[in-house]
Every structure is written in C-alpha cells, then in structure tokens.
C-alpha cells in the first residue's frame, strides 16, 4: 500500500496543466495535445488491449483512490502504454483544465464511444462505461457548448445502445425521442419562438422556398400548395403577404393549402393540423388573401396517395417539403420518398425542398458520427455567437429542438446502410422528371440580407444553380433547393 501511495504522485494528474513538457497553455494547446493524445490514443489502444475493457478504462479515469488504487496502479505497472508515461490522461480535476482541454476530452470520449458502439464485437459494456462517465462530466443545462452538446450526444448514444439490443429497424418508424413527450406545450412554443428569433434557420428555409414560389406563380391565378409537414404554418404567413402585395401579373391569386396530417398527434405539440388551418384561414382573412385549407390524412405507414387530394383545374401546384429545424423528428425516408414520388403524379409546377446538410456518406458510423457532432456544434456556436448572454434561452432551444434532432439523427445514421445517407436534393436530382430551377438573384440577395440580420458568421452560398446553402462559418448547415417537374423526361 505504501508503495502504491508513493507512486501516485507520478501520475499526478493535476500537474498536467502546469507541466511545461506537456500542456502549454500559451501556445496552441491543441498541438501539444497532439503529442499527448497520440501517445494515449483513445480509440486504437482499447481494442488492442487486454480482455477487460473496463480495466483499461479505469486506468484512464481518475477514480477515488480508495478501492481502486490497487487495480489502477497495478495495471499501470503492467501496461507501459498507459502508465506513468507522460500521458497522464484526461481526468484531471475538472477545475484544473481549461475549457479547451475539457472539450477535447469530451470529444475523445464521444469518439471512443462511437467507435465502440459500431465496432464489430460491439463491446457494449465499454460503451456503457464511457457513457456513464460522460454523464458524470456533463449536463444538459450548464457548462460550455461542448459540454451541453456532449450531454445530448451521450443521450443519443445511450438511445442507440438500448435500441440496438432489440433489433434495429431501419424501417419506417424512427423511435420518437422520448424528450419530446415530456415537453410542456408552452416550453415548446417558447422554444419555437426563440429558435426563430435567435437564428435564421427557420426563416432561411421558408423565405427561400417562398421566394421561389412567388417567382414561379407570377402569372397564376390559383395556387395550390401541398405541404409535407406544415407544423403551425408559419411559412405561409410571409408567402401570403408577398402574394397580396405583388405588383405584376394578375391580382392576388387564390391560395389553397393542403397539409398532410399524420395519425398520432403526439407529434404536434404545438398545434394540430386543424388548428393550423384555422389560424391560417384567419390570418389570410385579416390581410385579404383569398384562401382555403385542406387536410390530407395519411395512414400510419405514411404512404402518400395523391389521388386523395382535391385538385382544381388551372391551379399551379407547388410541393413543399420542409425537413429541417424546427420540424421535430426525422421523417422516415420511406415517407419522404413516397411523398416526393407521389407528387410526380400531380405534375407540380415547383418543388421546394429544405433539408439539413447530412453527414457524409462515407466514413462508417464513426465518421458520420463526428460529422453530426461538427454539425451541431456549429449550430450551438451560432446560437451562442448571436446570443451569448441568453444561456437559458439557448438551453431551452437545445432541449426542445436540437436534442431530439441529435438523437434522431444518430439513430438514422446508425441504422442506415452505407450509401443510403444521401440528401434528398441528390435524390431528386437523380429521379427522373425533376429538374433544377435556378435560384434567382433576388432570392440569393434576400438570403444574404436575412443572414445579415443575425450574425456575420452565417453564410449563404449557392452550391448548385438551384440550391442555396446556409452555413455557419465554414460549416454547411441547411440547404434549400428548388425543382420543377415535367413528365417528359
């Protein structure tokens, strides 16, 4: 025992931050970290190490030295890699580390967990251990962006762990994240408003789509929009405003909106489709927009049956598909595909699609996991950049919207086969009959102005002639694309 105690100071983690040889807080800590982490290398070593992954782990964690000391020290004696070599690992007392280092450690832990969960031997125990540790380190409501983000990713991984036990269904229905059910309606509403006001994510998609619609229907007298996921209909408020104030062409066209509704209204914490319809009707009336609203009820398998729609001769049909924030859950790909394919038979004049930039297709689960992590960390950063003081507000938005999406996103990625993860934009591009429509100068201009309202870290760029992409710093986040359909293709 005595020996043990004496040896401890060698692995005194608290020196980590101050030792000149390792961390150097003045110069780029990341670079210095390079060397240390490489020496430690969370991912590779674990699998290579001995039979008990937990043993490996204990060495890396700083446990209370009471019972664990024996194991810890003895292990470290055995294993040169991890032991008292210079890489005193991550678990220094939290207060001793800068946020950077903390964040880095969290990322490494997450990566490790992702690796473990996707590896062939599926060492679920290891994953669990990591996740438990992560849960200790982070909280949903406090801490830095990275910490809160990690909390949600931890949840997501746990979710995967639990669901993968019982046969993954890459199938029709993605498990509705549990968080959703626990939200108070008012919270959801507040978060919704906050999300809109704090970030351009919602408006970007809506306005870009609307502008394209407006341009497409300049000479139409009747417009019929089929909305895949209307939520509470806010997209259409600005469209109506634009329609009533249009100058050229025939006067205000009659607007019809058909909203798809799904059974199981648990998904609509803000409002049901009927309520939305009423609200839209009232709003239209108040501004003088001729309007009518319809519902198209889907079955539980969400197959879109275009024949069930009521069409009017002479109307221009627009198909609107919004898949991004704040639309809550991921729609199953079969549902979306069914919708888009089904819409062909309607001969739409325009198809507007807004979706999140998805993770890269290649790279396996870990690669995609990291991509998603980058994605959401950019989102978090963008919110913080705009509203550094409004921590509580951001926490709420994260809890209501971002968290569930993270969970859903990971589930989707985990369950999908390689190569299935393309974007819907790409899918449309390769489907026969759809061809791209250029984003107009006005549209692009509007997007830039809109983003300028928020923060100069946002970017709008045309990534294709028919696609506008919203990004934060250099990370692409959302894309809005415009398509037309003609049979003769």
């Amino acid at each position: 025992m005595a020996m043990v105690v004496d040896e401890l100071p060698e692995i005194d983690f608290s020196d980590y931050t101050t030792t000149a040889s390792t961390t150097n807080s003045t110069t780029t800590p990341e670079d210095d970290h390079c060397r240390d982490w490489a020496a430690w290398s969370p991912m590779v070593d674990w699998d290579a190490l001995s039979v008990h992954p937990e043993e490996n782990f204990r060495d890396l964690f700083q446990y209370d030295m009471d019972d664990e000391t024996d194991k810890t020290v003895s292990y470290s004696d055995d294993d040169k890699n991890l032991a008292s070599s210079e890489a005193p690992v991550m678990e220094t007392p939290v207060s001793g580390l800068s946020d950077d280092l903390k964040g880095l450690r969290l990322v490494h832990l997450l990566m490790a967990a992702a690796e473990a969960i996707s590896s062939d031997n599926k060492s679920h125990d290891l994953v669990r251990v990591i996740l438990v540790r992560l849960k200790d380190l982070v909280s949903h409501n406090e801490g830095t962006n990275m910490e809160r983000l990690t909390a949600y990713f931890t949840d997501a991984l746990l979710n995967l762990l639990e669901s993968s036990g019982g046969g993954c269904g890459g199938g029709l229905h993605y498990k509705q994240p549990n968080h959703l059910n626990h939200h108070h309606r008012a919270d959801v509403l507040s978060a919704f408003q906050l999300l809109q006001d704090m970030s351009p994510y919602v408006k970007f998609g809506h306005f870009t789509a609307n502008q394209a619609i407006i341009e497409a229907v300049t000479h139409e007298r009747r417009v019929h929009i089929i909305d895949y996921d209307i939520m509470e209909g806010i997209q259409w408020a600005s469209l109506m405003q634009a329609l009533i104030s249009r100058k050229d062409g025939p006067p205000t066209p009659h607007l019809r909106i058909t909203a798809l509704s799904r059974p199981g209204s648990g998904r609509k914490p803000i409002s049901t489709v009927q309520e939305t319809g009423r609200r839209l009707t009232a709003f239209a009336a108040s501004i003088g927009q001729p309007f009518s609203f319809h519902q198209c009820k889907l079955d539980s398998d969400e197959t879109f049956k275009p024949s069930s729609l009521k069409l009017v001769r002479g109307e221009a049909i627009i198909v609107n598909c919004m898949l991004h924030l704040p639309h809550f859950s991921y729609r199953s790909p079969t549902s979306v595909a069914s919708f888009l394919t089904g819409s062909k038979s309607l001969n739409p004049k325009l198809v507007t699609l807004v979706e999140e930039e998805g993770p890269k297709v290649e790279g396996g689960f870990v690669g995609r996991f990291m991509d998603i992590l980058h994605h959401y960390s950019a989102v978090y950063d963008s919110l913080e950049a705009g509203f550094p003081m409004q921590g509580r507000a951001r926490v709420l938005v994260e809890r209501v919207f971002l968290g569930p999406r993270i969970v859903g996103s990971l589930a989707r990625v985990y369950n999908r086969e390689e190569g299935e993860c393309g974007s819907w934009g790409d899918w449309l591009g390769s489907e026969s009959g759809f061809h791209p429509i250029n984003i107009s100068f006005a549209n692009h201009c509007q997007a830039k102005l809109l983003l300028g309202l928020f923060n100069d870290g946002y970017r709008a760029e045309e990534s294709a002639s028919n696609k506008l992409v919203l990004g934060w710093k250099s990370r692409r986040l959302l894309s809005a694309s415009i398509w037309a359909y003609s049979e003769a293709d």
Partner: protein
Amino acid sequence: MFHSKKAGAGSTTAMNSLHHNHHHHHERSNMCGVGPAGNNHSTAGSGTIQGDSGLVLTTDPKPRLRWTVELHERFVDAVAQLGGPDKATPKTIMRVMGVKGLTLYHLKSHLQKFRLGKQPHKEFNDHSIKDSERASALELQRNSGASSSGMMGRSMNEMQIEVQRRLHEQLEVQRHLQLRIEAQGKYMQTILEKACQTLAGDQSMAATGYNNNGNKVVGNSGAGIGMNMNMNMNMNMNMSTSSTSHLEQAAVPAGHRGSVMLFPGDHVPSAIKDFGSLNFPSFQDLNLYGTSQSPSPPAVAAAGTATARKSPLMWSDDELHLQDDHQHQQQEHHHIGVLSNNSSEGGGGDGCDLDPTVPNHIFETTPLTLASSHNVDHIHHHHLGLGPLDHSKKLERTSPRRPPLSSNSSMDNMRATLSTNSNSNMSPQGRSSSFG
C-alpha cells in the same frame, strides 16, 4: 460573396502560410487589377517593388500582390488553357503560369474572384451604394479584359446601368424581406396569443416567473414558464391575460394592448427585438447616430425589426436580470436612459436621423444592417419612400466587433480533435478549415 468581417485575419500570416484562409484573404488582398499598370507606381502610403519575376508587391506592412493587367492576362491565359475557371486549380495555374514568387494563396483568392466575376449577377457587395457601384463596375471592367464572352463590347454606360439595376433590385428585396418578416411575426403573435389563452385557463400562473437571479422558477405548469419566457422575450405581446409579469405591464404600450392589428406600420413584436434590447444596450451603439462603436456585442439586428419605438424604455430591472451575465446590466441601465430619448418615434428625428440611412445599411457589412429597426420603421412611416440615394452619411458604420469567440467554442474542439487524431476521416486542417 462571402463578406467576411474578420478584419483581424491578418494577411501576413496568409502570405506566409499556404493555408486556406482564403475567405479572409479574399477580402483583404488588394485586388486592384485595374490599377495603374506601371510597376513603379505607388499607392498612397505604400511603395511598390518590382521583383524580377515581374510581380509587383507593395511595401506596406502587409505585403500584397498587385494583379497588374499583364499578370492578370497571363492568369487568364493559363486558366483558359486549363479549360476554364471551374476546371483550373491554383496548383495547375501556378504551374502553367510559371511565375516566380506567385504562391498558391495568391492564386486561390484571385481565382475565386475570377470565378465570381464571371457571374456578375451573383455579386453582392455589402458596401454603401456608391461603393458597390464602384466595386461592381470594377468587377465588370476587370473581367472585361478576361472574359471571352460578350463583355468586351460593353461600354461603361451599359455597365453602369447594369449595376444600377442590380442595386435597385437589392433595395426591392430588402423592402420585401422586411414586410415578410413582419408578416411572419404577426402570425407568430397569433399563435402565441392563442396559446396564451388556452394555457391561461389551465393553471394559475401567479406562481411562476423569473426571479431576480434570472433563474427560471419552475412553475406548476409549463404554461407559466412559457408565458413568462414570452413575456421576457416578447415584450410587446398582448398577453394581457397574464397578471404575473410586471414586465408585461410595464412593457406593452397602451396602443398595442389587446388587438392584433395588422397594419404595416406596426412593428413586429418578436423576440429578436427584445433580445436585441437585451443584448445590445443601446441603439446608440448601433451607430445610428453616428457615434462610434462600443465594443459591446453587436446588435444582431435582431435588434432588427422595427423595435425602434418600443422596448428598451420598458425594460425593467428584473428583466435585465434575466441575463446570465450581470455585468451587462450597468450598460443596460445606462443605455436605457439614452434610449428613452429616442423611443419617441414620431419625434421626427431628434437625433433620429435614421431615415436616410436605410439603404446604406443594406450595403454595409454589419449585422446591424437590416434596416435595423429604426430604418425599417421609418420605411413604413414614410410609406416606403426611400428617397434619393444620396445617403452619404453613415457610410462608415463600423461594424460592432463581437468579442472574439472564445476558444470554448465547440467547433474549435472539433478542429483540435481533427488535428490530433488522424484516425478521423477528415483531413486535419488549420483552425479555419472548412467542413462544408
């Protein structure tokens, strides 16, 4: 294109590294191809050196490459040889051009500009009108030598007309955008009101609210919380049903209680504005009055929409306590006083010479742009009469600098990870690597 406002990017480092901060340098590098071709010509304050490679470098503290007409022509030739600006890469161009001293960095940014220049209708400069006219004309002119398609024949007049047209279009867009945002806000209001009414019936809301620490007091139902969030966020909501919030009482100006008036003149109550007020202590700081910027966090002109006449007056102390950082309260208090002077809208511009500033802000790079509030408001008040485009004032609205994002940002952690862990699939890059 991307108008990066990272003024501090430091092109010195760019010059030295081959690295890919070309966004920043895109802006920084002095792409005056149209400038005097003479090699020994000096710009104001800096001399030029002609190296024997034929490159003209300036001698100012941040040495920049001058793209002379000759050099540019060689560039264009090389690009043409390589099959066009989309096929050519900086590396291959460099090889083809064979100019000593030319680095990838130079080529990258020049190529990017070139590509942009080929599609002039996508160019969008955030400068003032005059600047952007000039800039656009320059772009067109610059590329007239390079482009093989029709621009050669264009006269300056035609180009000017083209530029003017585009600028007007931008103004239109801005106007429409404003209206659309308002419409959306009004609609949002109807949602919230409805929700309020339903929630009001549910449970008592007296118990909920924000205490002075800005901690959300978790009430018995989400209702109160939500409502109060809304209160706090959205001062101008007509939530007369709630009796708890002193904010609301203080906040909602009489004229706006109880009705959902959808007049264009109405400002849009939205959390943006209120956040704006929360964050951005004063419109004073937005330099709307020509004062210099304070280093406070920029008014994400979320201060944006038509806040002008309302808000900050109404903020009560407790509201301010909402913020997590109490330090800002000092500022806020101070500025509330300031604001009170201005919040009288009708006051045809006492110190409120906002009107003429409208279009400027479109073209200024700051987030304050969108007709931050006042402008928008005035747009409406003056029936969208923007007046002549002689907005020479306020050209130099310095963009409010954000406190540099702390390295806490999780993105940085990402990058750090990348650079450390070669197992990841992404190529390790510098801090400003592009993920997109």
